[in-house]
């Protein structure tokens, strides 16, 4: 579904990605883990054709219309209400407007539909951005730190939606520096450090390889062991 082969990306003389290779299969939840500045967002930018790599290749087996995107900068229209923001995209996708309401309901924003985005809290904005990403039931969903800064209850709600989307056939590519989240959600993860993938596979397999099981797979200690630094 998604493939990256030996991708290299430099900004000026600084190499931000070197030899990045991975594959995401259909209906898989793939997690890209690493600290801030590791190159996670650059990978999403390349995969979504917003940035060109210097060498290597990548492929995605869907058209842009079939992808959903949620980024750190949400790109919401601040003077419009929640429902109006979603209506813009419902109209672009050519889907009925009732889908906007359903998407708002799924992220728990019913009651706030007429609130302007400028009056929303950070968590509410994040949920609205998530609702926009899933509005058209995309085949591939790119989520850049989908739960960072959210309260545990809301984050749990987002996790449930992600799992439901996968059940319905979506492939999910997410970046996070929350190891617990990765273990809980992902079928496969790649650990990214200074633009290089230092380990990849199923979370349990990785932890087993590095003898990092406590009562549950402990990806964080694998990351520290491999990179010498804390993921946070």
């Amino acid at each position, binding site marked *: 579904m998604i493939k990256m082969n030996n991708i290299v990306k430099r900004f000026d003389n600084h190499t931000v990605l070197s030899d990045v290779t991975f594959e995401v299969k259909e209906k898989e939840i793939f997690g890209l883990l690493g600290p801030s500045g590791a190159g996670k967002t650059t990978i999403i930018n390349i995969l979504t054709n917003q940035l060109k790599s210097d060498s290597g290749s990548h492929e995605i087996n869907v058209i842009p219309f079939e992808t959903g*995107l949620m980024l750190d*900068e*949400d*790109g919401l229209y601040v003077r419009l209400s929640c429902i109006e923001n979603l209506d813009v*995209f419902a*109209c672009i996708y050519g889907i009925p407007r009732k889908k906007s309401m359903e998407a708002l309901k799924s992220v728990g924003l019913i009651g706030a539909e007429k609130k302007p985005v400028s009056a929303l809290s950070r968590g509410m904005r994040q949920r609205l951005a998530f609702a926009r990403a899933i509005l058209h039931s995309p085949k591939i969903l790119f989520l850049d730190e989908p739960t960072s800064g959210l309260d545990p209850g809301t984050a749990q709600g987002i996790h449930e939606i992600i799992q439901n989307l996968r059940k319905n056939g979506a492939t999910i590519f997410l970046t996070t520096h929350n190891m617990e989240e990765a273990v809980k959600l992902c079928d496969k993860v790649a650990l990214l450090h200074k633009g290089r993938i230092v380990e990849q596979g199923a979370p349990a397999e990785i932890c087993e390889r590095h003898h990092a099981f406590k009562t549950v797979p402990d990806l964080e200690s694998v990351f520290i062991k491999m990179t010498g630094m804390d993921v946070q």
Partner: protein
Amino acid sequence: MRSAKAIFIKQARDLFRNRMMLIQFIIFPVMAFVMTEFVAKSTPEIPSSMFVTMFAAMFIGMTPLSMTAGVIAEDKEHNSLRFLVMAGVKPHEYLIGTCGFTFLACALVSLLFGLIGGFTSVELAKFVAVLILGSCASLLLGATIGLFSKNQQAATAISTPTFMLLAFSPMIAQFNTNVAKVSTIFYTQQVNTIVNNLTDGIMKPILIILANIAILLTLFIIVYRKNKIRGKR
């Protein structure tokens, strides 16, 4: 055209909540109305449509330019443009939706100016047509500035001196012959010339406005090709 329609509707909703932009659309016709009713009509030496033509020419030089530049730069700065591109919106659809709404709003305000001016139907048609032509030039220039600018601050820094030059030069030209010579090449000066002499021949001013549009369209295409329509990195 579904995407252009969605962006057009979004622009309409956004304008009514963006006080700064809304003021730009309202202030010029309101000023024209007030000055015409309370100054021009009570002062025989002043032509009755003087304030209408003056504010209409200023409106054409300022509002479409600053609004288009501001909207495109804001969409780039807030990353909204990237989500539109990812949703499959084509660059021309984005520009039609964004500029289309501003164009329509300018056409309506131009008509309002014409009605305040109390022109005959032929003069009114000529007046509105010339203002619409001037709007096209301003829209192209605004879109070019919006594409070129990385954020709203940069867009404001470029668009403010530009619209001041274009909007005020016809007025300053009345008092200074040197400025008058230079401002002849600006479309705003030609719009001002036509709306002030609606009964005269308009071929030469129209040709200058069309030449302005051709130059601005070329500039727009160059900047468009270099900057593309996409979100920031």
